[in-house]
């Protein structure tokens, strides 16, 4: 039901049941918010969004108050502005003033608010909060002194990621956000997905930086510098650098990276194709043995840690195939090393990803052979963009270049794996292809591309049926468990921690608008429809690796190095 309310002496249309904020936004009035998150129930914690409602003694929060027909609202009266400004000044009064050195500099909502509210003087003085830094995690740094206690991280971790690894601790002036028992992060049940980092409005949560390390090696002539990056990274970099993305940009990125000093630039997608192939084989094996247990895809390191902590019984069912990043890494340290004649310990191998959990993954047990890590350093898209800026490359003025051989290309299936449901679809298609020698009809997998948290599909390969389930985000896991408890059996299950998949990974740009993310997904689907090489087994790179390289290289000829193991993890749950 629509009705009219008065805002700033003008009439606007509002809808029954919506909040003041939504009515205002629809009518082109912007109210700052800090604790609010789209699609979450409001908590009213920050009070930044207050407006004046005639007849109400106090100001009311626009993000939570439902509109009512009698309302006369003032959104920017002196009283309101003073209130908002004072609230931000209160936050700043003991804030570390660390902008120049801060991870969120120029991306910080607090900084932006201070600017928008025209705060130009420190009126309220207070002792600065003592810095408290928790760098114990491989992926995430917590800087408690920058936390404004908006509670967004707590809610994401509890309601979206469901591990509930963060909560408020204590109350009043002692309140802070932290993991169980207020321990350091590495003892906690955090699975490093980084979604809390994505929602944190300030620099209180950010990724662990590896730029310095990369720079050090870039300057060290003794090492061969190699970088791999996944298909999504190029679009993320384009966005961070403010360039319109098209598929040609990937080839431009190759030359940018070479300008920075990477001697070889590889497509992590090549590793993905191998993963897909290995998993499809495992699946074939399982189906042949009439295994009643499903095969769980283990490409998402956050999901793997989740399973190790919360569902240890399921570990035997996790596919042992390493993730694309690690597979690419191992190829670099074996095949590439052999080809170039450089000892693997003299290779410095960097991976750029849309994912934070991969920083953790690279440090896992089993990701190292004979003291040599599969991947030496992992950088997020944001870090890589920073590195590019640091090296002063004029990105508008580079000539496109191809990837280096031998990991120089990938099938469109590999790009698909970075969207939720895509990994399962790619494995499914490959499985059918390997079985029948024919391209599977894509329409059969249509259901895996829907946007609900749990999806399933049954595809028919002629002789038998293949049942596939997809948990899109860990909330989908609940539904999966329920289905299984009700007696449903699946052959293949994909779980991705970030809702929507790696397109929403915590290594991607902070600023991405929803539409941008949707476009990303569309581009990937479109490529899959148009690319000539859409199945891993058609990729010349893959064929070359399996047909030639594996055979020539003793180290990898048994393909064991593409596999790893998982173990129950003891953390405070």
């Amino acid at each position, binding site marked *: 039901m629509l009705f009219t309310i008065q805002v700033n002496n003008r009439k606007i249309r509002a809808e029954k049941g919506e909040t003041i904020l939504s009515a205002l936004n629809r009518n082109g009035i912007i109210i700052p918010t800090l604790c609010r998150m789209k699609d979450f129930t*409001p*908590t*009213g*914690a*920050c*009070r*930044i969004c*207050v407006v004046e409602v005639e007849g109400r003694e*106090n*100001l009311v*929060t626009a993000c*939570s*108050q*439902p509109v009512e027909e009698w309302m006369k609202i003032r959104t920017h009266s002196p*009283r309101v502005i*003073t*209130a908002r400004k*004072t*609230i931000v000044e*209160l*936050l700043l*009064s*003991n804030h570390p003033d660390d902008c120049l050195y801060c991870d969120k500099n120029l991306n910080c909502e607090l900084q932006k608010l201070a600017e928008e509210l025209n705060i130009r003087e420190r*009126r*309220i*003085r*207070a*002792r600065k909060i003592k810095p408290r830094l928790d760098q114990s995690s491989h992926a995430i740094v917590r800087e408690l002194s920058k936390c*404004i*206690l908006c*509670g967004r991280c707590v809610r994401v971790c509890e309601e979206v990621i469901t591990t509930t690894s963060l909560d*408020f601790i*204590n*109350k*009043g*002036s*002692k*309140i802070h956000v932290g993991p169980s028992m207020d321990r350091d992060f590495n003892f906690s049940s955090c699975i490093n997905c980084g979604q809390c980092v994505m929602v944190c409005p300030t620099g209180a949560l950010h990724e662990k930086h590896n730029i310095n390390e990369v720079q050090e090696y870039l300057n060290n002539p003794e090492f061969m510098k190699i970088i791999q990056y996944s298909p999504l990274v190029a679009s993320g970099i384009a966005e961070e650098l403010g360039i319109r993305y098209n598929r040609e940009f990937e080839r431009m990125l190759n030359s940018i990276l070479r300008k920075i000093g990477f001697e070889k630039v590889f497509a992590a997608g090549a590793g993905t194709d191998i993963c897909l192939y290995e998993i499809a084989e495992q699946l074939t094996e399982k189906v042949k043995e009439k295994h009643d247990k499903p095969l769980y895809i283990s490409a998402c390191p956050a999901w793997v840690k989740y399973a190790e902590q919360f569902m240890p019984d399921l570990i035997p069912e996790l596919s042992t195939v390493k993730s694309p990043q690690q597979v690419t890494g191992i190829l670099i340290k074996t095949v590439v090393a052999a080809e170039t004649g450089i000892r693997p310990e003299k290779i410095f191998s960097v991976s750029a990803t849309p994912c934070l959990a991969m920083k953790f993954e690279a440090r896992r047990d089993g990701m190292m052979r004979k003291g040599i890590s599969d991947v030496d350093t992992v950088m997020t898209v944001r870090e890589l963009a920073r590195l590019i800026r640091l090296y002063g490359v004029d990105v508008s003025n580079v000539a496109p270049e191809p990837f280096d051989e031998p990991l120089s290309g990938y099938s469109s299936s590999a790009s698909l794996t970075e969207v939720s449901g895509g990994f399962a679809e790619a494995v499914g298609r490959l499985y059918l292809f390997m079985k029948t020698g024919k391209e599977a009809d894509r329409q059969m997998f249509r259901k895996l591309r829907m946007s609900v948290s749990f999806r399933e599909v049954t595809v028919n390969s002629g002789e038998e049926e293949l049942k596939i389930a997809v948990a899109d985000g860990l909330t989908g896991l609940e539904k999966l468990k329920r289905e299984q408890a009700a007696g449903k059996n699946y052959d293949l299950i994909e779980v991705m921690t970030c809702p929507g998949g790696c397109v929403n990974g915590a290594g991607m740009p902070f600023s991405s608008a929803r539409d941008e993310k949707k476009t990303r997904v569309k581009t990937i689907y479109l490529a899959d429809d148009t690319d000539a090489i859409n199945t891993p087994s058609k990729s010349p790179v893959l064929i070359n690796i399996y047909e030639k390289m594996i055979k020539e290289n003793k180290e990898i000829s048994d393909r064991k190095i593409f596999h790893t193991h998982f173990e129950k993890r003891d953390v405070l749950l």
Partner: protein
Amino acid sequence: MDDLKKFLTEKVLLSESDTLPPETEKMLEVIRREKTDKPVIYISSGTSSIIAGSEKTWSEVKNYPGENSKDTELVRVGCNGPLSYEPFMCIQLPGKNKLFFRNITEEKVEPLLNGIFHSDISEEDLVGQHGNSGFGIWQGIPFIDELPWFALQKRVVLGNCGCYDPESIEEYIARGGYRAFMKAIRHYTYDEVCTIVEKSGLRGRSGGGYPTGLKWKQALNTATASRYLICNAKESDPGAFTDRTILESDPHRLVEGIAIASYAIGATTAYVFFRKDSPVALGKLLGAIASAKDYGLLGHNIHSSGYNLDIIVRAEPGAFVCGEETALISTLEGRRGMPQLKPPYPAISGLFGKPTVINNVETLMNVPLIMQNGPEWFRSMGTDTSPGTKVFSVGGKARLAGVIEVEMGTTLRSLVEDIAGGIREGKELKAVQMGGASGFFITPENLELQIDFDIIREKGLSMGAGGLIVVDEQTCIVELVRYYMEFIRNESCGKCIPCREGTSRMLEILDSVIRKPANEDSGTTLERFKGVMQLETIATVMKDTSLCGLGQSAPNPFLSALNNFREEFEEHIFDRKCRANVCRGLRTFSIDVEKCTGCTACASKCPVNAIYGTRLQPFFIVEEKCTGCGICFDICKFSAIKVK
């Protein structure tokens, strides 16, 4: 025992008529100890009494070897007098009026009892005789109802307090207890009970003054399978003790009030959210609930009415803010006690998402009386818009501190000066602080203020839950404001920015006012002054934007102190002087060269090493370093340290 239960149940509780037959009444008189041929000794037993030593008094009386002791009945009762009378003892000899003695500590027991049993009454600790029992009068002894403490009070809610054994449901029933509840469940519908309470004009006693009947109806009219009643016995105010006193002295009436209120909203489960640190009160409450169950007054199908009710007691785990309704609900649900957004209001969606009514202890104490005596009776007391009475716990420097109940409309002056006897030790009254940590200061000129929700609100003040602190000239207002601010800063839940950060900033600024920084030039004075100027903006924004009542009212003590005692703040800021001479941080210490023997005692104890000197020569204090802790002053055996 079972006979008594049967009798009370059949002849009293289930009696259809309002007046009981004379033979029943006679029995009840015996239970009420109005007809007794034994001497009865009543000893106060509340926490306050225990603190003052009543348990020792009790065992002393038990061991009293006098010849009459075996036939003497000993009763623990709640409290009805000022705190300064604790522990009190009432002695009732057969056929004679009860005598009221104060401060009967253990050593006084023997002489007192020796005297009494030989009709030799010690006047020293005698307060007076109870004049309303229709027994023989003691000649020459004043009637206590004529003393201002009792005469000017209107003890309705507290009517039973100090008169009976709070552990005896029999006595409570003999005093008319539970008949209102029986009436409600047997003769009225839910809606009718709400209407009666609505008509009475009862308003929430926790301070807001929200009409109780209206709140009940909102919950009742929300269609759902279940509803809850919560009795808020949290008593958050740092200086209040009314709820505890009520629970310790008359827990049965509260249980009856809860039962009626639950019935009125159709709730079958009620919770009591209980203040921690009151083991005595908790014991009494649990006892009262158990005996009510035993009498079939709680539980399944209460006396065949078809109504079921369980009362669950939950001890509050320690957080001031849990007194706030939505925070209270969070706590009961096992969450952090952080206030939630309203709407939805608890009466629509509260505990476990169900309609929930939350009422204060005092509010519920009024309910049985209203049911029994009718709404008109209730309206005959107090003012038009605030009928009834109000209970206050008067503390601070009052001569007769304690729990006091007055009719609405009484002036604060009468309450503080006449009933509570003004200030202790002949000092001057500086202010009365009403409403605790979120309350206001009222100066002596404004004591004509009438106690009435609307009058108080019109003045921009708030009544609070009943804490009343009498402030004398020896109290530093700035320090007291700082005390409240520190309390609130610690108790803020930390959820919203204006309250969490605002209280911290205000406390820091107040600290800078009452403490001297190590080095100060005129610039720093100005900074400090600017700080105080900012306080007002911060305070206004906190009131305007905080999520819950705690943050919204947190600046009240400061703002009202600043309004009324601005010059005291200015003295602290500019003259660095505390007129009450309490702010240690502002004192200047120096050593009198004439008196100092150079014993080094002070220098070795000074925590900041501000004292220098050579052994056996006069020492001196470096003023810039001294923090004014005063340790040296206490240490010096030669009175050589001077304070300014």
